[in-house]
């Protein structure tokens, strides 16, 4: 299991992008706590949370705080932003984390 060492962010607030901020889990927290804002919350809110959480789990991160501000990003963009934020936050990414075919 890996942990986020320090707060880090990736992405922008441009249309079609998502700004992802990751931070170390606090206290007894034992999950990935996601605070999400999205223009398409009604249609894709659950899907975005799931994409963020599953991307983190595949990197072995199961405890963290995430703030995400979505501007209609596609799943591939969300995954890219989450991976970059994790790397910047001190999480060593798994071999093959970046799939160029996804």
């Amino acid at each position, binding site marked *: 299991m890996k942990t986020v060492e320090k707060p880090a962010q990736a992405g922008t607030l441009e*249309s*079609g992008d998502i700004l992802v901020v990751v931070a170390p889990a606090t206290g007894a927290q034992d999950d990935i706590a996601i605070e999400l804002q999205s*223009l*398409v*919350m*009604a*249609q*894709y*809110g*659950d*899907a975005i949370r799931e994409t963020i959480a599953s991307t983190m789990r595949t990197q072995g991160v199961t405890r963290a705080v995430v703030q995400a501000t979505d*501007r*209609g*990003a*596609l*799943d591939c963009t969300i995954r890219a932003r989450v991976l970059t934020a994790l790397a910047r936050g001190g999480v060593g990414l798994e071999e093959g984390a970046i799939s160029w075919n996804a």
Partner: protein
Amino acid sequence: MKNSLGRMLPETVAGFGAVKPFAGAFATTPSGVRKAPRQKTVLPKANKLVDNLEEVFRRIPVRDGMTLSFHHHFRNGDGVVNQVLAVAAKLGLRDLTIALSSVFPVHAPMVELMKSGVVTGLDTDYMSGPVAEAVSQGVLAKPVIFRTHGGRARAIECGDLAVDVAFIAAPAADDYGNINGVQGETACGSLGYAFPDAEYAEVVVAVTDNLQPYPLHPISISQERVDYVVVVDKIGDPKGIVSGTTQITKDPVGLKIAANAAKVIQAAGLIRDGFSFQTGAGGASLATAHFVRKMMKAANVTGSFALGGITGYLVSMLEEGLFRNLIDVQGFDLEAIRSIRDNPRHLEVGAGMYASPFNAGCAVNKLDVVILGATEIDTAFNVNVVTGSDGKIMGGSGGHSDAAAGASVTIVVANLLRGRLPIIVDNVLTVTTPGETVDVLVTERGIAVNPLRPELKEKLVTAGLPVRDIAELKALAEKMAGAPKAPPQGEKIVALVEYRDGTIIDVVRQYKACE
């Protein structure tokens, strides 16, 4: 009950009456007669000029429960509606219905008057901004009536929309009530949407900030129908009324869609002498005119007319001889105003001639092609331009349904994805324009043809255009974006969407935030 598109409708609606369900774009025919306003007389030497709006209210007199009508040529620069409603509030009037052909953000003060009961009814063809937001949240007890531009003319003509007092925002007026839209600081061009109001309202008031000596020339709305003339400081803000110039989009996706839409027109064999055309002012719609212009020049053809809301781009096509005439119900920019003022080939027409389905023929019937937008389109080609993806009201038909019904080829142009949201859905949230009147959808990833038009599809395929099944385009979008969940909706009906023939095509329910 359900209408012919399967939409659930109430049998009756308080404040509206029995609901007539939509039965098909041309299934409902008229059986009534036109309504006529009372006869009047004005004696020689009588004076129609009144000092201020308050005095007009007293003279008429405006009473609780009346319907006051307004036109929207001033768009987001309108100053008349707010001034008139402020007087209504000051005089303690209640329960007014506002029949304003389109509502814009500038009309935000109306929200407070809805909350306080001064305004309890709204009848319109389009709305955006704070009023749309408040209506979506359920501020009114009675549902708003959404009409089309042609349907509003029809409703006024037959008395479905009985106007007690029409307030006409007049860029130029004389003291005997002659009005035009082409002179003065607040010139807006055509006054077409005000024509039915002026013709059928019981009382007509000209509100102007540009009083000219009698007789005004030219005359768009005549003294015969105008009872009072009021001069106020300002009737609007020219910056909100027109844009300087309307630009062709630089967005490469929009340009690709526009180029393909033009190719559809060409493949349909319509780039020929006598070609007639309508398009909007926005994004890919206007850009389509740009590509059509090139094709017309290359083929050396002269079109008959361009119709609808007129932009400088269409004016330049008129001046180059690509169209013989412009038929103008609303001008969008300074060039459109200059042209309708100076060029006799540029015609000002009312909403009835433009698009009313129940007269002896409206101009949209003579269209070869119309280019329209969509918020959503479903696999049966039904189009929503009333509600956004969250279920909130953000528009309205305007002339969308009218032009779609009239034109030989109706083309909807839209990005396959808007943000993350696919434009093609199984069932649009709010049907505005029925699929039977929509022929082609052009996206950046392919072109879908309504199965009701196999001969058209054949022509596009033969021309080598990227024709796909609409379900295939929908799947393509969902592969990229995922399938969206439907937004939650409240129970209360906040608006009825009336088709141009007076039947109800759908309802809009109260907005509900997602959990």
